[in-house]
């Protein structure tokens, strides 16, 4: 059942142009220059420090590195990060 859903997800988003973050439960990362990163639909914070933020998503981790990081807001599935962002990296599981 789950496999069927996973297979129909990309197909739906491709042919009906439905947003893929909703269809496939992927994280949505919005960036404003180097200043802000807004991550929605993540599954929890694993590492946070001044220079690094690592979030869990459904297919691995998102790692953001940079300097002078401040978490402007933390909501259950959203995080707004402020600072000097240098890198956004997807690490597969």
């Amino acid at each position, binding site marked *: 059942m789950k496999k069927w859903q996973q297979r129909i997800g990309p197909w739906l988003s491709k042919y009906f142009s439905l947003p893929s973050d909703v269809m496939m439960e992927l994280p949505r990362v919005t960036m404003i220059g180097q200043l802000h990163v807004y991550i929605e639909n993540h599954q929890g914070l694993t590492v946070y420090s001044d220079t690094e933020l690592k979030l869990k998503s459904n297919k691995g981790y998102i790692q953001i590195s940079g300097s002078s990081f401040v*978490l402007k807001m933390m909501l259950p599935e959203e995080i707004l990060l402020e600072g000097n962002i240098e890198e956004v990296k997807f690490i597969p599981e």
Partner: protein
Amino acid sequence: MKHIQGSSLTGYVTVFVKGIQPELFFQRCSEQDIIVWNVEKKSENVCSGNVKLQDISRVKHIKRGTDYKLSFKNKRGFPFMMKKFTRKKEILVGLLLSILLIFFLSNIIWEIKITGVPKDIEEKISEQLTQYGVHQGTWSFTLDSPSEIQQNLINDIPELLWVGVQQKGTSFLLEGVEKTIVEEDEVEGPRNLVATKKGVIENMYVSKGLPQVQVNDYVEPGDVLVSGKIQFTNDEQTDDDGEEEDEAYELIAAEGEVIARTWYETEVTVPLKTNYEQLTGDSETKYHLKMLGAEFPVWGFGNPEYKDIHRERHEKDLYFFKWKLPITFMETILSEKTYHEAERSKEEAIDVGIKQAKNELQLRLGPEAEIISENILQETTENGKVKLILYMAVEENIVKYEPIDQGD
């Protein structure tokens, strides 16, 4: 960002978390639907973040059973400000005192302005006002209402025709109109004196003019009493040589007083039984503050043991600056009263009736008229009332001025 809007109003706290991987503590918080913002990693083992005041108990709940150490710093927002403020007793007392002071000053009469009247009457008015207790520096809620003061002033100062009293905040504005004594509207030029009522002439005092009637004559209204047309005798006419016969008279303004006896028939009814209330003189005063329809006693508790009570209520508005407060000051005067029931005999009722009728007539005719005698024409008693028809004889001046039409 709307999630943290208004947090400065409801209050928020900066939480410092100490422990291994302190950021995971905040992760747990956000899993529990607690909003955390401005999370900063201070060092390897310390992390700080802001939490709303209402979430603090839940944060403490999460902390239980973990190795993290929490400390709360930087308490910000309105609730904390209030707390800080109330801790400073001096400021609180000062604020209270200043509000009280403004309240007191707002309810004091500071100025009495009298306009529209000359100096001497102005002085009289202010003297009267002082007698009523209206002067600079009195409490405005101890005073009578402006309309009462207005009435009293008009009664006590005969020179005043009208006075407008207005209370405008802390000042009393009086606008007076002086009575100008208008000369009696006399008919100028030649005139006759004419009777206004029917009557028998008792006395005549004619200073100018030719009397047309005599004492003990009966006159009807409209009869000429004293003529202003003076006929010259033939001897005098011959002195004015060359004058025509048509102008053998002179027109003057007649003047004089004709007192005649007139009659009036009046009807009075006097009840045999009377009820009246009388105050015994014992009274108590109570004060209330009335707020939003509810009354709170300030002074005077309990009810006096009077059998019958006459209540008199006065309501005074209170002010703060120029604004009327929703609180009013109520004064209630409870006076003991007694009911009297009196029964009078027929003779007494007749006496009362005659007196009453005389008073009424005197009022109608003015002070110069004199009631000489009264006779009872008819008396009937029915339904506990005595009905009298009285016949009264009056001596009064019946003169009216009437200009002589010169026919030009």
